[in-house]
């Protein structure tokens, strides 16, 4: 009797049942809240990230070769387009400088602080792995705590918002894409300032849910982050509104234009809930403000 036949009896059945039941229990235990991904997942991602980066070198090399060839064939047309764009942008720059002066003056008159909370600092990271599976849409980035990446930080491409960081390891981090089932982002219509929630449903174009007034939303409207949750800054470009065949309002993401490779992580500090701020101040020795205080 060969080795494999001997083990193919009772032992194999027990092993199969044990493995299957363990997997099943793990699956059910995370139903609705995938929270069994603590240090072990972050450690796995720290291992996967550098290996995936090494494995991706030849793939990226081939991609770059194809892109360079395509770019060279279009150099002349692109040069003309870019010259036109520069001319237009110079005019806009002058207008922007004037507007900046005006806004500063209004701020002084009103004693208001109208800072845009989008950070000027950007952490450059490479998306070493992108999962666009039947259930999950996420990115594995090769930057982590050592690079100042924090939980909830927005992840951007040159075109627009891609998602936000959901777990951070030492040298890697995981970002949830806007199309993922678990992604919910508060957004704003730039034209009407109407608010909604951008809800991922495992498709390329996420759904606009909890719309205040459906009449305020029309195809072509520009969608930006509203910053209402305090987790993302206001004003990050997201995409444009489209209507699908089922007359649902969805967003065609700016970031879907090009495949994701290099990304920026914006080190945004989330706005803490008031209780948390008071607790922190107490911890630092500041006397808490109470109702019965004189």
């Amino acid at each position, binding site marked *: 009797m060969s080795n*494999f036949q001997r083990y193919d009896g009772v032992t194999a059945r027990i092993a199969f049942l044990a493995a299957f039941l363990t*997997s099943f229990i793990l699956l059910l235990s995370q139903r609705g809240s995938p929270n069994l991904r603590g240090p072990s997942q972050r450690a796995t991602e720290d291992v996967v990230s550098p290996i995936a980066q090494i494995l991706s070198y030849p793939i990226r090399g081939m991609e770059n070769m194809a892109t360079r060839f395509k770019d060279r064939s279009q150099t002349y047309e692109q040069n003309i387009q870019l010259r036109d764009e520069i001319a237009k942008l110079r005019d806009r720059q002058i207008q922007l400088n004037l507007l900046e002066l005006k806004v500063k003056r209004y701020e002084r008159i009103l004693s208001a602080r109208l800072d845009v909370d989008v950070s000027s600092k950007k952490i450059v990271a490479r998306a070493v792995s992108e999962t*666009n*599976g039947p*259930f999950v849409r996420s990115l594995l980035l090769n930057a982590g705590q050592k690079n100042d990446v924090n939980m909830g930080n927005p992840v951007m491409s040159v075109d627009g918002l891609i998602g936000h960081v959901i777990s951070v390891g030492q040298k890697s981090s*995981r970002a949830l894409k806007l199309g993922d089932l678990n992604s919910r982002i508060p957004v704003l219509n730039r034209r009407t300032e109407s608010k909604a929630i951008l809800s991922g449903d*495992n498709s390329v174009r996420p759904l606009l849910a909890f719309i205040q007034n459906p009449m305020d939303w029309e195809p072509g409207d520009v969608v930006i982050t509203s910053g209402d949750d305090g987790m993302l800054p206001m004003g990050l470009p997201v995409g444009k509104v489209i209507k699908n065949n089922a007359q649902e309002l969805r967003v065609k993401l700016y970031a879907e234009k090009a*495949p994701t490779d290099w990304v920026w992580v914006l080190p945004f500090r989330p706005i803490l809930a008031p209780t948390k701020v008071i607790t922190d101040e107490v911890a630092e020795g500041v006397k808490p403000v109470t109702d019965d205080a004189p």
Partner: protein
Amino acid sequence: MTFVTPHINTSSRNFIPASLSLFVCVFLSVLHINIAGESISLLLLPLLIVSLWPREVNTVVTIGTFFVIGIFLDWGTNGVLGQWAIVYLTVFAILRPNRRDHSLSFFNAVSLWCAGLAIATVMLIITGWLAYGVLPNFTTLFRQALLICAFMPVVVFTRNLVRYALMDPQDRDYL
């Protein structure tokens, strides 16, 4: 008079290249490749290796490998833990690729892959509904399955090449 035949440990000889290729495929499946502006994913590539698992490999070790690789893939892709392990174990339990009588022809490989894909789809629907409460994105699943079909001749050819290279020179005569 006693005839002594040398014991050939086919189990480990088949298992090591198969498990190594499964491991490499798991890493390839978490990468993304951009071709002509389209991002493609090889998430189903390990399933192909599972469907074409070699003969005469220790079943217990195989089950352990699929469990570990499945959990690793779930971690690597941010999926719900246990989903891919269940899929691989079910495909293996139903197809029993390690109990085949004959070596794998291309036609057999295609049949096994189609059967494996059908079982995996059913299991993904069940586990996805249990874990996420939704059905999988069938467009993505279909695209990824088609992509693996395109890769299949290369995988089968490489598999047969490795098998031939690792085979005993005496056994090659019986091919």
